[in-house]
């Protein structure tokens, strides 16, 4: 599995994580899923968790999910995943991530240490929901 995106989009994703620090930042990946999966645009969103939980939780509200589907339709793209940051934590999915994960989606996680984005990795949930497997990120 592989996820292709431009260096500019990766920079935008990491900048969003830095701006949200020390809270978690999140948004949608819009793109196409054919012979290869490619991110063409991102939709950064507001973390809808209550204040006290934003340092280790993110929530994209139902209304934002609907708006994202409409925006993807408008652009002739599909929702293909979600990005979020892990402030001062590794960029591996947590058990909480797995419990709440959707199939099909790519999940890009960026580790942000002391306000600086360190690295992004992408993951997909396996069919039986037992774990995530990493997919290679290719930038161009």
């Amino acid at each position, binding site marked *: 599995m592989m996820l292709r995106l431009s260096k500019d989009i990766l920079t935008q994703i990491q900048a969003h994580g830095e701006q949200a620090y020390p809270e978690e930042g999140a948004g949608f990946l819009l793109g196409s899923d054919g012979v290869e999966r490619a991110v063409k645009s991102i939709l950064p969103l507001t973390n809808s968790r209550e204040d006290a939980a934003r340092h280790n939780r993110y*929530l994209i*509200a139902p209304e934002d999910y609907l708006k994202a589907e409409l925006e993807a339709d408008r652009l002739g793209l599909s929702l293909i995943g979600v990005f979020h940051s892990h402030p001062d934590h590794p960029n591996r999915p947590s058990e909480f991530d797995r419990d709440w994960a959707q199939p099909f989606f790519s999940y890009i996680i960026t580790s942000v240490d002391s306000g600086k984005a360190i690295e992004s990795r992408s993951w997909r949930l396996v069919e039986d929901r037992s774990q995530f497997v990493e997919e290679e990120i290719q930038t161009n």
Partner: protein
Amino acid sequence: MATLKIPTPLRSYTNGQAEVAVNGDNVAQAMEHLIEKFPTLKPHLYNGDGQLRPFVNLFVGENNIKDLQGLETPLDENARVILIPSIAGGTDGVQADGVQTSVCIGGCGLKSALRDIEERCFPV
């Protein structure tokens, strides 16, 4: 038959269909019919105890069924049911809590978003 709108990440289980016609006098029966039609959807909508997973939100028209009669919410022939996943996650930490799934219900634009999507999905 009622119409049930499927979110993007689940459409690979409905042969790519964004909308599925379902039978049922209430939401529970409509969901059962959905699973009968597309059994591989089940683990992504229900947990091992047969309960809907916490990220599953169901709306009849503009209203979350949590604000109606839950899964017993009745459906008429022309009912429009929309399945919306809550997208959530985060780091493992001390807070093993649940997630607020309806923080904006009726307050910050959900109904207008639903109207927008219904106009696209269910043109009059």
